[in-house]
């Protein structure tokens, strides 16, 4: 992995992704121990800066950092001086002055983590910026697919070539989709975007994908169906007539689930809106990896923090020596 920040999946490249996934295996092993903690980042301070609320992602990062024995500082916009009018730059410089090794940044505007790198000496991890990227989500998605493939046997673990993955839904506004397209295609998968034109990015120039508005035409060929959340506010305006029509055209209904290939996997970044992008009963099928994605998020985020902060000489999984 090049650089000391993780702003985009593109910062990693294929090798970087593979390295993170391998490291995540170690943290999965750690999670099974009686004391699921290693001293790798003892003395390091990790700050989570969530300018946009997201309890799940924040908890995942904080758990990941604590398993490495890092100190964790938590900042959220609703409890901060931002409400008193402090600028983003002043906020970052203030937290930087307290001495932190990593800033994990979530913001509703694309590009904020990239801008933050100019105002701090800490490593910056993008925890989701606007409609741009959510690289750790893509890494945990890759990890989850790799894990599921490993269990079904045969295939080399991180080589996704030959795999056809459909990303269904609001690609245009989705940072998860942008990171997943990059990561999955770097690992060799063929990615098909399935959405009405209104929910595709205005230009797919340079995207290693195919696109279609006909879910039924591609459904049977997919190895993974990756459903994106439809935000209710997109419907009833210009982009979608209404959510019922969306469900009828793009929802993973029980009927469609029955036409999936035998070993096809169902994934979703959460939070899932049952009855819109997925039928309630389909979400609970064994093919659905949704809770595994959440579990794996912790391992992958530990791997990212370890990689950025422990450096090449860091001990990966030494035993916790008891005083942490």
């Amino acid at each position, binding site marked *: 992995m090049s650089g000391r920040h993780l702003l985009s999946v593109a910062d990693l490249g294929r090798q970087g992704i593979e390295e993170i996934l391998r490291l995540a295996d170690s943290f999965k092993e750690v999670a099974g121990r009686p004391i699921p903690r290693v001293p790798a980042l003892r003395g390091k301070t990790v700050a989570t800066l969530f300018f946009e609320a997201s309890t799940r992602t924040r908890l995942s990062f904080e758990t990941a950092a604590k398993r490495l024995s890092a100190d964790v500082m938590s900042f959220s916009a609703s409890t901060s001086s931002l409400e008193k009018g402090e600028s983003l730059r002043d906020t970052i410089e203030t937290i930087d002055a307290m001495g932190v090794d990593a800033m994990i940044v979530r913001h509703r*505007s694309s590009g*904020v983590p990239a*801008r933050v790198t100019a105002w701090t000496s800490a490593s910056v991890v993008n925890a989701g910026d606007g409609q741009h990227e959510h690289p750790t989500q893509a890494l945990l998605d890759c990890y989850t697919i790799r894990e599921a493939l490993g269990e079904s046997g045969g295939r080399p673990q991180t080589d996704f070539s030959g795999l056809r993955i459909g990303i269904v839904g609001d690609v245009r506004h989705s940072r998860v989709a*942008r990171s997943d397209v990059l990561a999955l295609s770097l690992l060799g998968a063929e990615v098909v975007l399935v959405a009405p034109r209104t929910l595709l990015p205005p230009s797919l120039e340079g995207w290693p994908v195919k696109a279609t508005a006909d879910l039924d035409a591609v459904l049977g060929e997919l190895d993974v169906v990756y459903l994106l959340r439809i935000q209710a506010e997109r419907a009833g305006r210009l982009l979608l007539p209404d959510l019922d029509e969306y469900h009828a055209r793009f929802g993973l209904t029980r009927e469609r689930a029955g036409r999936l290939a035998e070993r096809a996997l169902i994934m979703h970044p959460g939070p899932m809106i049952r009855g819109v992008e997925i039928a309630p009963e389909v979400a609970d099928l064994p093919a659905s990896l949704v809770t595994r994605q959440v579990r794996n998020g912790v391992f992958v985020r530990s791997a990212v923090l370890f990689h950025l902060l422990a450096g090449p000489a860091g001990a990966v999984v030494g035993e916790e020596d008891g005083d942490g």
Partner: protein
Amino acid sequence: MAELLIRGGTVVDEGGERRADVLVSGRDVVAVAEGIEAPAGARVLDAGGCLVAPGLVDLHTHLRQPGGEVAETVESGCRAAALGGYGAVVAMPNTEPAIDDPSVARDVLELGRGALAQVAVAGAITIGRRGERLSPMGELAALGVRLFTDDGSGVQDASVMRQALEYAGDLGVVLAEHCEDASLAAGGHMHEGAWSSRLGLPGQPALAEEAMLARDLSLVRLTRTPMHFLHLSTAGSVDLVRRAKAEGLPVTAEVTPHHLLLTDAEVASYDPVFKVNPPLRGQADVEAVRGGLVEGVIDAVATDHAPHPPETKERPFEEAPPGMLGLETALAVAFGALSGRLGAVGLLGAFSWRPARIAGLDPASGGRQGGPVAPGAPANLVVFDPAAEWEVDPAALSSRSRNTPYGGRRLRGRVRHTLREGEPVVVDARAQR
């Protein structure tokens, strides 16, 4: 009377280029010839290797006064203008309050009296630039206002624009449109295309500019009132204006220096210093606006100098205001972008006499800008060294703001001296007051 000799340069005006010294006495040029001997007591300015031309005229300057003095004042903006070689600027009316009333126009003109560049004002087309009721264009025209625009936004309602054109037709003024269909551009923070799609930033399509331009051209065909099109930025816009001119419609157009040089790829840094409206476009658009200027479809280069205080440009990209500084870098940027394609006469025409005519500041309109460099002409002059290389240091700019997109960039070509009514207001790239 104070005499001043500009020695060793190449004089460039609408008549062409020639090696000549220029002798100034008081407010006027008194002699243009090779080898003029400096009169006793005359100040001599070296113009070796330089172009000596009528001062530049910026059709599109945001001086921010009244209401935006944190970002710029008439005084600071005019100092920046003089450093950029400008003899005159047209102050845009999107101030607070807007220049939609004779009292505001008078105030701005008054503030401009002692400034380092001549200040002309553009009036708003509609009250408060709200696109609803016409401003008192007649009263404003009586104060010498020649250009009217709601710049910052376009006039959205086609019937309002039609009325404005019909009304303005009687007054001998020009309506200037900021072409942006608000419904198509809504929520867009950069050019819609491959980069916006990748960067996850909502875009505004080229169509938002072209749709309003096409509408306005139809209105000009109907009303025959002259229109000027501000900061055109797309290949489609250049095509539309080319066809309109071929048809004989009374239209003129400008392009900014940044649209001649920069593309939307710059936004990959997410630095709001690259946020501007209209947004930086793709490479094909950059090529098209360059071609449009070379061809004469686009008449003028205008800066759209838009100062914003640093704290607003440190916001997230989507929350930062659009706009870039331009006055101090414009000529060098355009020279660089068009080197080899447009000679000195063509380029300085786009910066001086053509915009002077559009703004009604040229000698034929009774003004003192953009005329020939000849005995008896006003000594509003720029001395530009096309070979000088310099690095843009935002902190060293004389604008009150720092939002130049060229910080750290090396530019070739620099204004060495500027004369305003015979007074050397910039000497060796330094403002004299």
